[in-house]
């Protein structure tokens, strides 16, 4: 049996270890048009005359003829029926601390079985996972990892949740949904890490089967979204509001990029929008940018910029504001907004101390919002 076949089988059965999984899959130099892709009918599309279709999953509304693929690269019109090519085809599988997503107010100190397929429906110039998000599924190794195998692997690796992450789970919607449904039956939680570039109807149908969503809010003006994301900001803001109006736990990350989206006006505008439209208790993470993909010419975010953004957010009335990608920074910790005491101490992804009792601050009993168990 060849190594590749072994990995396919073993991966599907959830038998191989964490290290083997990640080591096996992240691999250029394997473009193969005969790769075994899925042919599962996609959801959220309209059939049109002459074998054309219009996808309705995200605000691009790709209108495609026969043999054409959408912007995401992983959904294809074949003879007038639209298919997802990545159902059960994971290119990255890993058990991560939930804090890495980052979720700071959801099941702390637990692992999330994290998976992704190829593809994405935006093209952020600063994408940290571009090697899997900006490729077609034939251009990267993947394993057969159907929903039952995902569940088994999560249980084997002591992961109480499954994370749909790394690339963009919107584009592998059907795989995510089907897996989440099965996970629910097995009392596992589902968390999503997304740009939220998705139409309202598919989002509303997804919410009942997931438990937490972290949204990457990339900037706060459409010009930035046009030039550096190739996306639609209004759609993302609407998605955030839809999520916030549901029982799903929400956290937001803002990657602070020097000279592009780090101006005080944008940050203040965003914080006030969050406060007024979503509420002061939604955790907001300002994450440090490192040169990547198509923005290698910019420097990493200065610490002073992150701390300034942090202060603007607090001054705007937000209660839980963090700085990410700066290990051991004091603003990785959770502080009670009432008494100011540190309720959760963190160093990177590790938690050293939790001062919560039944979800309340141990010192002043202030409720600290989150999903703590």
């Amino acid at each position, binding site marked *: 049996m060849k190594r590749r076949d072994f990995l396919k089988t073993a991966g599907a059965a959830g038998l191989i270890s964490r290290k083997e999984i990640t080591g096996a899959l992240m691999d*250029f130099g394997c*473009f*193969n048009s005969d790769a075994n892709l899925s042919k599962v009918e996609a959801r959220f599309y309209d059939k049109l005359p002459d074998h054309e279709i219009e996808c309705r999953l995200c605000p691009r509304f790709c209108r495609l*003829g026969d043999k054409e693929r959408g*912007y995401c690269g992983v959904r294809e019109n074949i003879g007038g029926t639209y298919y997802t090519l990545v159902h059960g085809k994971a290119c990255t599988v890993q058990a991560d601390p939930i804090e890495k997503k980052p979720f700071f107010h959801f099941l702390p100190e637990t692992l999330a079985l994290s998976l992704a397929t190829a593809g994405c429906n935006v093209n952020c110039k600063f994408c940290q996972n571009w090697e899997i998000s*900006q490729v077609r599924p034939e*251009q990267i190794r993947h394993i057969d990892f159907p929903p039952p195998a995902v569940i088994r692997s999560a249980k084997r690796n002591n992961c109480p949740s499954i994370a749909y992450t790394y690339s963009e789970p919107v584009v592998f919607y059907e795989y995510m949904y089907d897996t989440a449904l099965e996970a629910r039956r097995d009392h596992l939680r589902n968390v999503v890490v997304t740009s939220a570039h998705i139409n309202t109807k598919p989002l509303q149908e997804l919410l009942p089967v997931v438990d937490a969503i972290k949204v990457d809010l990339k900037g706060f003006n459409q010009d930035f979204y046009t030039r550096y994301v*190739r996306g639609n900001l209004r759609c993302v803001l609407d998605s955030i509001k839809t999520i916030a109006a549901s029982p799903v736990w929400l956290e937001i990350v803002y990657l602070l990029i020097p000279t592009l989206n780090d101006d005080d006006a944008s940050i203040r505008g965003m914080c006030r929008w969050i406060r007024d439209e979503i509420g002061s208790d939604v955790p907001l993470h300002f994450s440090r940018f490192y040169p990547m993909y198509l923005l290698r010419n910019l420097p990493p975010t200065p610490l002073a910029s992150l701390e300034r953004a942090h202060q603007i957010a607090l001054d705007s009335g937000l209660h839980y504001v963090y700085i990410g990608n700066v290990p051991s920074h004091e603003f990785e910790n959770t502080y009670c907004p009432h008494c100011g005491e540190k309720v959760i101490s963190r160093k990177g992804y590790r938690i050293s101390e939790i001062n919560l009792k039944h979800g309340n601050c141990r010192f002043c009993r202030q409720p600290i919002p989150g999903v703590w168990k």
Partner: protein
Amino acid sequence: MKRRSRVVIIRSRKSLSPDGLSPRILERMFMRGLSHTAESFSLPRVHTGNDTSIGIKINTIGGKALSTGPPVSLALARTLLKRDVREENILIWDRTNRELRNAGYRLNMNRFGLKIYGTDTRGVDYESRLTQHLRIGSRFSAIQARLISHSISLAMLKDHGLAGVTAGLKNYFGAIHNPNKYHDNRCTPYIAEVFDCNPVKSKHRLTILDALFVQYHRGPAFHPSWNKAYGGLVFSTDPVAADFIGWRIIDTLRAKKGIPSLKEEHREPLYIRTAESMGLGTADPNAIELVEEEI
């Protein structure tokens, strides 16, 4: 006075015999087309050494019904052989081996003889590093980036729902790993900017539009109702002028069927003007010398 860009249309109804495309006629068409453009198209000849090679980039995404098939590209290859190009210096290629096979090609990756294969051939693939140029950030096929020294874009001429027209310039979308990321805003300015990237611009020598059968409406997918046997090949060393004339052919066919022009449908190919503004060629009819021949 600035020299005009020459675009040559060679047509022959006989190329489309009842039994299929006539190889003999196709070769004559290629001979005539190259003879009109040869003075500005330098071919690597037998004495230029082993490190030169011609890549003929074709478009096979449309399957057997709407691709440049073996009779056409092999006729071009035979024409090049008659112009003293070595057989082992010619590579007919596209994105994937699967698409080539589906279009009727028999692959050949041997060192000797005419080569036919796709970027996904083992040991080929895309370059691992990104080419970043203007708004383009893509990995180029190793074929375009390293394995060939001269490039011919042998492109299907088709209507395209987003770009307006897909022809010689857009053919190079098949040379990058992520063409799906460059279809918004009607593929503008991306078609022009991909061509302007060094792996393409430094090697491109000649555009030949396969206008034997033209999908003039509802492209790029195959719709027999709007597919016309035009019987033509369009040649130019000016890639913009070639696409401009291709656009005119499509609009002519549309008019004959009583279909609105691309401009009337708000689908005129903006990328052509963009490419012209970038200095890649001309789309000014007054600056184009059009030569038409019937065989």
